[in-house]
């Protein structure tokens, strides 16, 4: 139990958690007087300046004297506008589809596996060591073997996204199942639950918050893996677009690809969040 939780926390530190609200800061709690930057208008000014400063630094990097200068914000924007919108959209959707498919397979295999390992000591003894042996290998290290094993590129990329999504889902499901307070099980049995209702109406909802933590981490890693896979395979997708931009010296396009990956990752993480809010209605925290 403690072991699996440790694994979970190690994984969650890897997860890109971009959707979190910025911390309000300690100073805001200590001072009673309102400074201009604590007013709504002031905070908009601050946030806009933050972005401006970011663009200025980027621009400065672009002006550094180098053999091949780094593309400036302006050039990157131009490159983005010059892309054929349909082709770009196709690449985005292709990556999105690969992430979604791998993620879905990861959930379909990972959740039941986590449930079984978390429930039964027999299953835990039999299955968990095998999972543990594989876990420390970073998913990216699987690329060569995946290339060898899968005759078609599509299979390889989906395998990689599946593999990246799989572990956080399994580990968090195990933690969710084995962490159900005994009291709920006792209460449910006293109230006369059969094993069917005990599973579906008690165990499943009790596990859901944990499972969604796993799904949220998993979707981030799935994006990591799809980009890595597409950069190696170069058969469409937003990772391939980014890599090809480098190889064909269309350097400004690199930024377009990176931005698209960021936006798509953000959108998928928001989808999981919305789903969690819809399913876990009782969790008001």
């Amino acid at each position, binding site marked *: 139990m403690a072991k699996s939780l440790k694994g979970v926390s190690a994984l969650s530190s890897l997860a890109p958690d971009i959707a979190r609200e910025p911390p309000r800061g300690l100073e805001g709690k200590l001072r009673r007087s309102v400074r201009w930057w604590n007013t709504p208008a002031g905070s908009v000014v601050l946030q806009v300046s933050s972005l401006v400063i970011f663009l200025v630094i980027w621009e400065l990097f672009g002006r550094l004297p180098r053999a091949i200068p780094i593309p400036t914000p302006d050039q990157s924007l131009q490159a983005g506008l010059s892309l054929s919108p349909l082709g770009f959209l196709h690449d985005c959707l292709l990556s999105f589809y690969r992430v979604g498919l791998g993620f879905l397979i990861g959930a379909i295999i990972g959740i039941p596996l986590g449930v079984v390992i978390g429930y039964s000591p027999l299953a835990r003894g039999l299955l968990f060591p095998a999972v543990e042996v594989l876990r420390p290998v970073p998913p990216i290290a699987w690329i060569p073997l995946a290339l060898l094993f899968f005759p078609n590129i599509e299979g390889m990329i989906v395998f990689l996204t599946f593999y990246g999504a799989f572990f956080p889902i399994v580990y968090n499901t195990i933690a969710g199942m084995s962490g159900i*307070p005994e*009291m*709920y099980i*006792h*209460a*449910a*049995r*006293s*109230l*006369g*639950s*059969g094993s069917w*209702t005990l599973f579906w*109406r*008690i165990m499943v*909802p*009790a596990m*859901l918050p944990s499972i969604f933590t796993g799904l949220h981490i998993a979707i981030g890693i799935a994006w990591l893996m799809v980009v890595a896979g597409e950069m190696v395979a170069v058969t469409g997708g937003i990772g391939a677009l980014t890599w090809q931009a480098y190889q064909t010296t269309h350097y400004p396009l690199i930024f377009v690809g990176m931005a698209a990956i960021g936006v798509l990752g953000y959108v998928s993480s928001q989808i999981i969040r919305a789903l969690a809010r819809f399913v*876990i*209605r*009782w*969790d*008001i*925290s």
Partner: protein
Amino acid sequence: MNSLGVTIRHVTKKYVTRRDGEVLALNDCSIGIHPEEFFVLVGPSGCGKTTLLNIVAGFDTLTSGDVSLGNMLIAAQGVISDPGPDRMVVFQHGGLFPWMTVLENVCYGPIVQKQMTRAEACNHARSMLAGVGLQGIEERYPGEMSSGMRRRVEIIRALIGRPKVLLMDEPFRALDALNKSVVQEFLLRLFDTHLNTIFFITHDLREALFLGDRVGVMTTRPGRVKTIIDVGLPRPRSTRMLDSRDFLRLKAQVTEEVHEEALEAFAAGEREAAR
């Protein structure tokens, strides 16, 4: 007549822990709880009273001795009866399911036991909640209510299936003083009207005397019942009684009687509070 008595005869419980080896949690523990009696077991933390309650509830096994509910043997060596709605439990940390609304929580038992249809159960639950002044919260989740409110709902959830005995494991322990006295009075009113057999566990002597018809005092581990006190205070009782001369005299007298154990209970409580 729905309520039954509980007879606990010479119950001993040993278990093995990795750290301490074999532990004797209960040693030859005997209690006879009468039908429709409010029986309180008071004892210091870790004396095995929760273990005893868990054995009665069917959550734990015993090493020797036996337990009967009415004439039915429910626990003995080799006899394990599954927990069930005849022995409902109200838990120390609050056992309402956080993912169900108040109404769903209260209806759950009658529905899964197939005693009632969903509609019947809902109607029954609504009227039962309204009968004790808990209307208007049916659609709330437990996380949206105060802990005192949650305890009251949990008691209703336990009573809706008409248990033969209500088992309460320090249910008011985590409540602040104000909430505690509200919920204690709530429980007393329910007891006055429903006369369920209640087996109540606490480490608080004052609470024990305030609620119970009889109070059993348990020793520190290995737990056994040292004395049983007839409280003999008239019902209905109210919190005002807590300051009455009769109550204070009784409490002083009992404290004297159980001085040693009370001191240990107090020390254990302090240790717990300091943790």
